[in-house]
C-alpha cells in the first residue's frame, strides 16, 4: 500500500469520524453548539462581561491591564490558564472519589439538556425526536444540582456542608418553579414539541408576551438555581468562605465556578426557545448553513443576551437571606407559577391559541 492510498484511507476514516460522530446531531449538540464549546465560549465572554458591566456601574474599569485595547478581554483566558496549571489540592479528609467525580458529573449533566433541544426546524438536524423534547429537556435540567450537595458532603468541611444544605434547600424550591413555568406553555399550545413551540412563535407573538408571569418566574428561578445575584446564597463568602466549593482548588474549582454559568446557559437556551421565540424571525432555509448554523446562531445570541441581563443584576442587588429566598420561592413564585399555568389554560380556553 503506497502512501497515497494510506493517506486516503486515513482521511476517509477521519472524515467518517468527523461526519458520523462529531456531526451526529446529539453528539454535535452536546459538544459544539449549544453544548460544551459554545457554552465555554459564552461563559468566558459572560464572566468578562459581568466584571466589565459591574465595573462600569462601580466607578472603575474592571479587567484592563492585560490588554487595554480590547478592554481586558483576554483576562478570562489568562484566568483559565491559571486555574489549569494551579496545584490541585485534595484534602486528606475528603472523600476522594466523590470529591473528584462530582464536579465533572455536574458539568456533564448541566449540558445534558442541550441534547434534547432543537436548534432548527429541519428534522434532519434534530438530535432526538422532538415529540416530548420539552419534557425531556426539563427533566434533564434537574439532574445537575444534586452534585453540588455531593461536593459539599465530600469536602468534609463545615462551611461546605452548610453551603450544601443551603443548596439543597434552594434546589427543592426553584425546581418546581422552573418546571411549572416552562410547562405552562404546554396547555396553551397542546404540545411538548419544542419545534412546534418555536414555530408558533414565528408569527411574532412570543410566548413571553403571552405569558409574562411565566417568563419572570423562570427568570428568577434560573437566577436561584445558578446562585446568581440576588440569590448568591450557597457560596455566600461573608459567612461561608466559598460554600460548597471551599476545599476546591485549581482546575476543579474552575469547573465549579464555570458550572453555575453553564447551568445558567442551558436554562437560558431553554428559555429562549420556549419564551423568546428561539430562532423566531428567521425561517430556516435549505442546506446546513441556512438550515442549521444561522438559526442556532440566533438562539445563541438571544440566550447570551438573557445571560447578560442576569449578570448585570450583580451590580444592582445584594443577596437575600436563605429563609427570605425560600419564602419568596414558596410563597410568591410558586403561586405565581401556578397562576401562569392558569393564564395559559385561560388563554387556550379563550382562543388565543391558533
Amino acid at each position, binding site marked *: 500500500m503506497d502512501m497515497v492510498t494510506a493517506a486516503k484511507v486515513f482521511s476517509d476514516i477521519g472524515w467518517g469520524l468527523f461526519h458520523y460522530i462529531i456531526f451526529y446531531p446529539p453528539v454535535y449538540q452536546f459538544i459544539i453548539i449549544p453544548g460544551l464549546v459554545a457554552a465555554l465560549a459564552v461563559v468566558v465572554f459572560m464572566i468578562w462581561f459581568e466584571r466589565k458591566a459591574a465595573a462600569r*456601574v462601580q*466607578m472603575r*474599569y474592571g479587567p*484592563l*491591564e492585560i490588554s487595554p485595547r480590547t*478592554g481586558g478581554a483576554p483576562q478570562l483566558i489568562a484566568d483559565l490558564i491559571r486555574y489549569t496549571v494551579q496545584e490541585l489540592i485534595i484534602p486528606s479528609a475528603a472523600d476522594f472519589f466523590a470529591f473528584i467525580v462530582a464536579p465533572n458529573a455536574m458539568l456533564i449533566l448541566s449540558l445534558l439538556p442541550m441534547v434534547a433541544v432543537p436548534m432548527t426546524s429541519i428534522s434532519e438536524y434534530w438530535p432526538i425526536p422532538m415529540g416530548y423534547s420539552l419534557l425531556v429537556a426539563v427533566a434533564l435540567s434537574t439532574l445537575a444540582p444534586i452534585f453540588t450537595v455531593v461536593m459539599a458532603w465530600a469536602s468534609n468541611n463545615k462551611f461546605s456542608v452548610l453551603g450544601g444544605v443551603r443548596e439543597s434547600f434552594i434546589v427543592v424550591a426553584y425546581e418546581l418553579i422552573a418546571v411549572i413555568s416552562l410547562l405552562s406553555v404546554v396547555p396553551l399550545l397542546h404540545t411538548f414539541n419544542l419545534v412546534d413551540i418555536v414555530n408558533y412563535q414565528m408569527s411574532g407573538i412570543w410566548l413571553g408576551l403571552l405569558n409574562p408571569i411565566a417568563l419572570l418566574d423562570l427568570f428568577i428561578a434560573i437566577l436561584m438555581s445558578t446562585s446568581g445575584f440576588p440569590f448568591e446564597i450557597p457560596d455566600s463568602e461573608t459567612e461561608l468562605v466559598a460554600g460548597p466549593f471551599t476545599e476546591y482548588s485549581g482546575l476543579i474549582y474552575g469547573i465549579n465556578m464555570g458550572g453555575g454559568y453553564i447551568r445558567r446557559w442551558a436554562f437560558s437556551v431553554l428559555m429562549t426557545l420556549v419564551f423568546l421565540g428561539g430562532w423566531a424571525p428567521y425561517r430556516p432555509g435549505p442546506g446546513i448553513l441556512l438550515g442549521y448554523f444561522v438559526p442556532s446562531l440566533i438562539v445563541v445570541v438571544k440566550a447570551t443576551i438573557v445571560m447578560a441581563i442576569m449578570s*448585570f443584576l450583580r451590580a*444592582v442587588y445584594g443577596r437575600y437571606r436563605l429563609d427570605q429566598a425560600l419564602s419568596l420561592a414558596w410563597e410568591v413564585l410558586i403561586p405565581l407559577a401556578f397562576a401562569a399555568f392558569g393564564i395559559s389554560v385561560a388563554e387556550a380556553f379563550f382562543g388565543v391559541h391558533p
Partner: protein
Amino acid sequence: MPAKPEIKKVPRATFLGRAIAGNIGALTLGVKYFFDPNRITLLYPHEYIKLKQGYRGYIVLIFDKCISCASCARICPAKAMKMVSVNVKDKKLNKVMKKKYPVINYNRCIFCGLCVDVCPTEALYHVPYHDLVYLNMNDMILNLEQFQEQPEFVTSKEGVPVTYVFDEKRGLVKVRADESVKQEGQIGQTSGGENK
C-alpha cells in the same frame, strides 16, 4: 447654636411600592451608570497624580540652613532621623569644626512632617513626590549627600501627570495636570485605556 436632637424615621414603603418602585429605581440607576460610567480609577503606571505643593512627601535637607539643633531628630515619632557628626568648614569663623546634621531612614519614616514643622530655620522641606523606588532596604537609609538631593521621580518617565479636580456632578474628575491649569471649569476626562 448648639446641636439639637432630631427624631428621624426610616422611610416606610407599601408592599407594592417596595416591590415595584424600589426595584425599578435600583435597576434604572444601575442602567444609567452602565451607560454613563463615572470612573475615578487612576491607571497607575500610565498615569500618576501630580501632587500639590504642601503634600507631605519626601523630605529634603537644605544643608546650609541647618543649625544642628537636633529638634527634628528629637521630635521624630518613628526614630527615623539621626544626627551624624561631620567635619565642616565654617565660613564665618573660617575653620574646620565638627557639626551634627540629620540623616533619614525611609524604612521608618511615617511622613508625619513633624520634623519639617519643628525645624526653626526651615532647613527641611517636603517634596510633593510620593512613589519612589529603592532596590533594597539598605538604600532607603539616606546619607547626608543623598538627603540633600531631590529624589528622582521615576513615575514621570512613562506616566502622564494627572490631577483630580472637584466637580459637583462627578465628585473627582481626572484631568491632565498641564491642562488643569489652562482650562479651568472646562473639564474633559482623560482618555483611559479604553475609549467609549
